[in-house]
């Protein structure tokens, strides 16, 4: 009976017009206590610390010298013979073993992501949606299994860029210098250039320890984003995209529906805003990147009960098992009386938030948990 007067509200109209762009790549619920009181002091002391923008010595060993022929392939050409492929394999093996120790698993609260060490004194780049909030404690796991503590510094949410510093007293035995990869520049790269992505896809797993490697090419470069076909998934967030000299050119951020939609933050933004990030400043909004939060349900407006009139295919609601006809009674602990109110509650959250929803189906109360998705407000290339 409800279906007859289902009228798509503004939320669903916008949803239909805009392309579903997938989601951030961190894993797990995000919930934190309040900021530690010592944060201001920490930030002040950080100002004085060294911040080498360019590595003083190349971290590449002699064995990793690119022949002009390989360099030509890696910067946009394609291999043409078995000989080319064999040279690539040999070089990639060496490069992967070189950059693996610089890639870390990052755990902030219940959020799992990745990161990359870019200075010997332990500055780590990650994604803003992994870092979550300046001053928080992070747990970093190196590729050899060592576990060290770090502190979240600054975040540029407009770009999804975040910074962590390994604590000076990370542990008695572990105090650096840390294995690091220098920052390169994404601006000099062209579409067709080859690149390596490392990260703890699916979250850190003891069974495998090392971060998974993926290989691919740059499909598009824009000011705010690099797109590659190095496939990414949850847990990769914050991990490094390397050029074929082992320099960090991007930080994994988000994915879209197709395997060719793997988005990375250009590393140049970290260099441009280093002072602010290292100073613990946070600015911008993640919404400008992945858009408004959605759960993916349509419904009637001004109805007494927030009964679901339709489910977006492929949406968080569908994956959580919500069905047309369900009546949502609470959203993230708040009572829901109408669909308009539900929309307001949804708008207050961020994509990637995990929320508990209570609903009524055939008189039964059902509790489901879902992670909110996002719909982009404007083009990523703006």
């Amino acid at each position, binding site marked *: 009976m409800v279906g007859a007067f289902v009228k798509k509200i503004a939320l669903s109209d916008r949803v239909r017009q805009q392309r579903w762009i997938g989601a951030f790549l961190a894993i797990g619920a995000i919930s934190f206590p309040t900021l530690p009181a010592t944060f201001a002091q920490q930030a002040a002391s950080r100002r004085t610390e060294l911040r080498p923008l360019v590595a003083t010595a190349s971290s590449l060993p002699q064995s990793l010298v690119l022949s002009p022929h390989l360099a030509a392939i890696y910067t946009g050409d*394609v291999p043409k013979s078995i000989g080319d492929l064999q040279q690539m394999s040999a070089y*990639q093996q060496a490069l*992967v*073993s070189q950059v693996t120790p610089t890639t870390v698993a990052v755990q902030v609260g219940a959020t799992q992501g990745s990161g990359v060490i870019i200075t010997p004194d332990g500055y780590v780049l990650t994604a803003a949606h992994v870092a979550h909030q300046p001053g928080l404690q992070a747990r970093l796991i190196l590729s050899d299994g060592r576990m060290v503590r770090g502190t979240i510094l600054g975040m540029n949410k407009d770009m999804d860029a975040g910074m962590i510093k390994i604590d000076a007293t990370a542990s008695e035995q572990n105090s650096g210098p840390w294995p690091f990869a220098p920052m390169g520049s994404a601006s000099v790269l062209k579409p067709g250039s080859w690149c390596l992505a490392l990260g703890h896809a699916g979250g850190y797993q003891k069974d*495998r320890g090392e971060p*998974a490697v993926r290989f691919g090419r740059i499909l598009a470069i824009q000011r705010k984003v690099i797109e590659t076909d190095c496939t990414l998934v949850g847990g990769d967030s914050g991990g490094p995209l390397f050029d074929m000299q082992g320099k960090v050119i991007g930080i994994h951020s988000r994915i879209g529906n197709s395997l*060719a939609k793997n988005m990375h933050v250009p590393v140049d933004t970290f260099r441009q805003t280093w002072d602010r990030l290292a100073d613990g400043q946070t600015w911008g909004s993640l919404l400008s990147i992945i858009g408004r939060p959605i759960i993916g349900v349509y419904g009637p407006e001004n109805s007494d009960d927030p009964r679901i009139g339709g489910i977006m295919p492929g949406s968080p609601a569908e994956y959580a098992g919500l069905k047309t006809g369900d009546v949502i009674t609470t959203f993230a602990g708040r009572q829901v009386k109408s669909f308009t109110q539900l929309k307001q509650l949804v708008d207050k959250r961020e994509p990637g938030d995990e929320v508990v929803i209570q609903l009524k189906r055939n008189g039964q109360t059902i509790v489901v948990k*879902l*992670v909110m998705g996002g719909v982009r407000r404007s083009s990523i290339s703006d």
Partner: protein
Amino acid sequence: MRIQPRITTRFLVMAMMLSTLTLYAVRAQSAGPPANRTGQSIRQAPQSAHSTPDQESWLKELMGLTRTKHGVSQYSRNHASVLRAFIPVVSEPSKSTVIVLCNNKQVALGTIVRNDGFIVTKASQLDGPATCQLNDGTRYEARLLNKDDKTDLAMLKISAEYLPTIQWQSSGSPLRGSWVVTPGVDSLPITAGIVSLLPHRVRGGKIGVQLGESEQGPRVHFVLPGSGAEKAGVKPGDVITAVNGRFVETVDSLINAITTYAPGDRVHLAVLRNNQKIQLPVPLGNRSGRLGSSHASFQQRLGGPLSHRRVGFAAVLEHDSVLKPEQCGGPLVDLNGRALGINIARASRVASFAIPTDEVLTLLPALMVDPTTPVSHARQESTLLKVPFPPANLPETSRR
């Protein structure tokens, strides 16, 4: 003036088309008619000189005229301009690769492991009687000899001889970053990728209970709070008798049955409670037994379907080649065309799995034992080969 670039483009396209066709002509010659092959051929695939739809799309893609549904751009690592370099790599292994069909539909690839018609494939993809289509288009009815639950490998037997056998590379896994290639039955490989992770264990989902043996079967002692078992209403004292219609009689067999399903999957448990039979649909949790986020499994599926059986392996080589579930079961080869393993699963958005060659080779003798041969004979044979006797070939789903 404006027309000039168009003319140039057209000329270029024609030139490329010519060179591509030459390439195909060479391939057609080298393939030739099958020689020395006996056995009953069901159907000869048309060996047309014209390009098939597959080849056509390849031609177009090669010329950058189309973008596939996955949005493969000319810069993609799996663009034909890249895959072309692998043609000599797969020229031999593609002859040892077969298409496995059930109900006239491709369900998997297969790998010829002995020249008299033994073909390894992915067991869980088989759905009824199977047919194998060789690289030259010949089709043979296949007989299922054995399955190995732990690796999800199955052995098919076709009545053919003098088949080109896959060459193995058994001295360990190549390092992370090395090229790996998945041959199909064509001159161009299906896909290429790199080794993402060295062989490692992949655990399956958990329902979140503690179990003990009982006369009736595995009995639940404790239900983990927050687990799928709790959500589904499993109670201490319940005896679990079947998982998705497959009977389990011991704790071990129950665990083995569960771990072949991935976290996020739902299994139907047949439960005996107070001498009453009930069915409980239980969502599987992660390694800790707790239910994971629906978002994680949602992301894994962005980019294409995954294999149903994609977890619960003692060791898999993980690579970043993009496969479809029906492209598993064939060999994964190195740049010398030697098999590093058998592709066993499209596992996630970022990974495909292969059972490493060493493990496949250990299993082959047992998988090749003909189950219709009298047991005593089979025992004798396996003793001679110095391999453990194959696990009892339990009926796949026994229904009472």
